[in-house]
C-alpha cells in the first residue's frame, strides 16, 4: 500500500532529517486491512532511527504528537483502529517540548512528590479531575 508520511515539529530529525517519506507498507500476513496500529509499529521499526520514545509511548503515539490522516484528526477516524487506504497522507506533528519525552522524567513524575503530601493531596486531585460541579 502506497502511503505518504510527513514528519514535523522536529520529528524529522529522528528520520534522517527527511520531512516527507513515500513508503510502501504491507498489511500483516493474514489480514487485508492496514490499521494505524500496524503503521505505527512499522514506522517505529523502519523509519525512526533514534530515540523511539519521542515517537511512541506504549502502543500509541506519545502525548504532544498530533496525528492527521488526510488532514483529519485521527481521533475522529478511530485513533489506532483507523483503516488506511491507498495514497493516504499521514502527518505526525510534534507540538510539545522535546525534553518532556525523556524516559527518566516519565517514570519519576510521581516520586517527585513526597509520600506525605501525596496522601493528603491525591484525594483532592482526584476530585479536582472528576470536576466538582459536574
Amino acid at each position: 500500500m502506497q502511503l505518504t508520511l510527513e514528519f514535523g515539529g522536529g520529528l524529522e530529525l529522528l528520520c534522517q532529517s527527511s520531512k516527507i517519506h513515500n513508503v510502501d507498507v504491507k498489511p500483516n500476513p493474514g489480514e487485508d486491512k492496514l490499521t494505524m496500529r500496524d503503521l505505527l509499529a512499522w514506522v517505529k521499526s523502519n523509519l525512526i532511527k533514534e530515540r523511539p520514545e519521542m515517537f511512541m509511548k506504549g502502543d500509541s503515539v506519545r502525548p504532544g504528537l498530533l496525528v492527521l490522516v488526510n488532514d483529519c484528526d485521527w481521533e475522529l477516524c478511530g485513533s489506532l483502529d483507523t483503516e488506511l487506504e491507498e495514497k493516504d497522507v499521514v502527518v505526525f506533528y510534534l507540538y510539545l517540548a522535546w525534553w518532556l519525552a525523556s524516559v527518566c522524567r516519565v517514570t519519576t513524575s510521581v516520586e517527585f512528590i513526597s509520600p506525605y503530601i501525596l496522601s493528603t493531596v491525591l484525594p483532592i486531585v482526584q476530585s479536582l479531575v472528576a470536576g466538582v460541579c459536574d
Partner: protein
Amino acid sequence: MDNNLFKPGERVAVAASGGKDSTVLAYVMSELNRRHNYGLDLFLLSVDEGITGYRDDSLETVKRNEIEYGLPLKVVSYKDLYGWTMDEIVKTIGLKNNCTFCGVFRRQALDRGAALLKADKLVTGHNADDIAETVLLNILRGDIARLSRCTFITTGEDGPIPRCKPFKYTYEKEIVMYAYFKKLDYFSTECIYSPNAYRGFAREFIKDLERMRPRAILDIIRSGENFRTATSTKMPEQGTCERCGYISSQKLCKACLLLEGLNRGLPKLGIGRARGTNGLNKRVEQRNLRSERTGSNIESKQCGTLDF
C-alpha cells in the same frame, strides 16, 4: 462573549513571544477585529529575556508577525529594565529556580511595556492546558491566594493593567491544529532552561490525563473556578512595593526582592517560603542557621483551610 473582555476603542497589547499560542492569538485578534469591527487598537509586545539561541530566534519570528499582521511591535528587554539578562542570572544562581526569576521579571516587564504603549489591557496566549497546569501546581504548593486568582479570565482589574487570557478554554491541541491548517509562522522550540522546571511534571500529568479522558482539562479548570476558601483564612493584602511602586502583598515586590538577592550575591533570596513580612532579614538569618543544621528541612506550609 459572555465574559465581556473588550470594549470598542480600547488599546490592547498582545503579549507575543513568537510561539504558537501568541502567534495564533495575534492572528485571531487581528482577524476578528477586522471582520467584526471591534474597534480595538492592537499592538504586539515582546519581552527579550536575553537567552541566546532561543529568544533571539523567536524575536525574529515576532518581527515577521509584525509585518504579516500589520501590528506595531514594541520589545522590552530584561537588560534595560533590570540590568540582568537570563543568561547572567542562570550563571549566578545555577540551573534551578530559573523559571521563578524569569516569570516574575516577565510579568513586570509586560506591565511596564504595556504602560509605555499606553495600553488599556494586556492579552496573553495562555491556553486551557496552561491554566490546568497552574491550578494543579498551586494545589501541590498549597498556594491559596494564587489558586483563587489563577482561573479568572481577567486578572488585575484593580491594578495598573488588566490581563486577559482569551484562550482560557482552548485546548493546546486546537491551537496547534489551527496554526497548522492556517499555515501560520511560529517558533516551536522550548526554552533551553526549562527542563528543570517543576511545571514540567504537572504538564506530563495533564497530557497523560488528556489521553485517557480529554475532558479532564476543562474539568480541572472548572474545579479551580469553583474553589471556595474559608472566610477565616488570612489572605495576603494587596499593597504597593516600597521601592518601585508596583503592586505587592509584601513590603517589597517579588521582582525587587529577587533583584536585591542577585545584586547582593544571595541567589536564594525570595525563593521558597519566607514567613512574616520581612523576608529579607529572615532569609539571611535562615542561611546562617542552615549551615549549622545537618538534618533535612521540609518546608511545609498551611496557607489556610480548603473548604469545598
